[in-house]
């Protein structure tokens, strides 16, 4: 009986947490589409998310593309299908690895920073101060970050896709002996619009998730430094798990026959 009660408590706590997150998301999204818009803050967040994440996302994409070419070559060579390497690299990068790797990297870099910044504002009463200065904290702090996350991650993923495919190209040509022109031809021959579009849709969703979980964890942090630390961990872990879940859901929506 105690076991059933414990399961019930966990389930109720899960429902409560989901409800809180849903209410927070609904209110924040409503503030994203109603004026006034804090353009200066949106711009600052866009630079933080888009420009300053470029090095880490670029490096990740480069090595992912290179490893992908190497692994597909060694695998496909077993049944003489080495010619498919270029196609595998471009499809994997655009459909899956570009958005997922960029999403996870941005979750670690930006989601954590958002949770820490907003969490510190919460425990030092800066969020209460916003309220007393006739400024809605959700509109001022959360909406600009959601807009920036939603718009900047697709741009990062475009860059990640290009760099990743280029990484695969470099390894294939310089190490595996592929003809550059033939490699590029097979890269573009099998690439369809939906491959790129599905990746960009994923990127937009992942960007929203990273910003949402960063803001939500920070906004609801309690206590002092320990509370902010645990909000940061929660932001990164929950965003990463949600990215992987939504990756499957969006793939299913786009590609299941």
């Amino acid at each position, binding site marked *: 009986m105690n076991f059933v009660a414990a399961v019930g408590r966990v389930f109720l706590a899960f429902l409560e947490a989901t409800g809180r997150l849903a209410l927070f998301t609904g209110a924040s999204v409503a503030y994203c589409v109603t004026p*006034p818009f804090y353009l200066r803050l949106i711009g600052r967040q866009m630079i933080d998310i888009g420009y300053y994440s470029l090095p880490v996302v670029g490096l990740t994409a480069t090595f992912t593309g290179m490893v992908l070419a190497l692994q597909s070559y060694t695998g496909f060579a077993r049944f003489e299908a080495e010619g498919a390497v270029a196609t595998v690299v471009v499809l994997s990068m655009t459909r899956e690895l570009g958005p997922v790797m960029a999403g996870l990297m941005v979750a670690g870099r930006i989601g954590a920073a958002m949770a820490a910044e907003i969490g*510190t*504002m919460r425990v*030092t*009463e*800066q969020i*209460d*101060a916003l*309220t*007393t*200065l*006739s*400024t*809605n904290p959700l509109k*001022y702090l959360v909406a600009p970050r959601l807009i920036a996350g939603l718009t900047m991650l697709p741009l990062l993923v475009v860059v990640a896709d290009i760099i990743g495919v280029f990484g695969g190209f470099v390894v294939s040509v310089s190490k595996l002996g592929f003809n550059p022109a033939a490699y590029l031809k097979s890269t573009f021959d099998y690439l369809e619009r939906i491959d790129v579009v599905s990746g960009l849709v994923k990127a937009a969703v992942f960007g929203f998730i990273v910003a949402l979980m960063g803001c939500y964890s920070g906004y609801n942090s309690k206590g002092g430094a320990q509370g902010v630390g645990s909000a940061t961990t929660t932001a990164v872990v929950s965003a990463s798990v949600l990215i992987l879940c939504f990756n499957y859901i969006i793939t299913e929506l786009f590609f299941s026959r």
Partner: protein
Amino acid sequence: MSDRGIKISVRDLHKSFGSKVVLDGINLDIGVGESLVVIGGSGSGKSVLIKCILGILVPDSGSIKIDGEETVGISRGGRERVLKKFGMLFQGSALFDSLPVWENVAFGLIQGRGMDRNEAKKIAIEKLAAVGLGPEVGELSPAELSGGMQKRVALARAIAAQPEVIFFDEPTTGLDPIMGDIINSLILTCVKRLGATALSITHDMASTRKIADRVAMIYDGKIIWEGPVSKIDHSGNAYVEQFIHGKEEGPIKMAVRG
């Protein structure tokens, strides 16, 4: 109490966090232009009372009227309108780290009232001067200021929009006695100059004696005594006596654990 009418009226206010009852039927009136100081030990519910009046916390039950208008359960738009009457100085100053000092002071004018940034900056520099800080301080970051200077900036921010009511949450906590006295004098000057109503919460008796017209003591979630500051030394209330003299012996038993 002021004979010019009541600015804030609190009736039978209750607030609990889980099983912990923090406010247990608070009744309080603050007159227009009056300076009321609420005293009480740590964890007695002083900050919760202020946050309930501001709408940062939602009370479980009771009534809070500002200028006769009920604010418990008020709409979001109504709350924003009511909050325009308020300024607040937070215990830890609560300055925004990401903004320079002048923008902290001008924040309510720019974001809350849509004022032009250049015009708001001029007012911010004036308010900084009113609390004894030069215009060069306006360009600094809050992290570059001492605790006393941060309190002055927070006071400048609280008065920048010329509020009708100003709340002071432990205004002298963490300051040395001289800086505490300077802040108390600034509070007196600024409140008098604005003609504002002031509600302060503190456990600093020197601060209380300097800035209060009237004092109320909160204990165990209730107001157990209130009266003019001149009568606090002859209150006839054992709780107040123990508190103002800081004695260990007496009816107030401090919880070692929260």
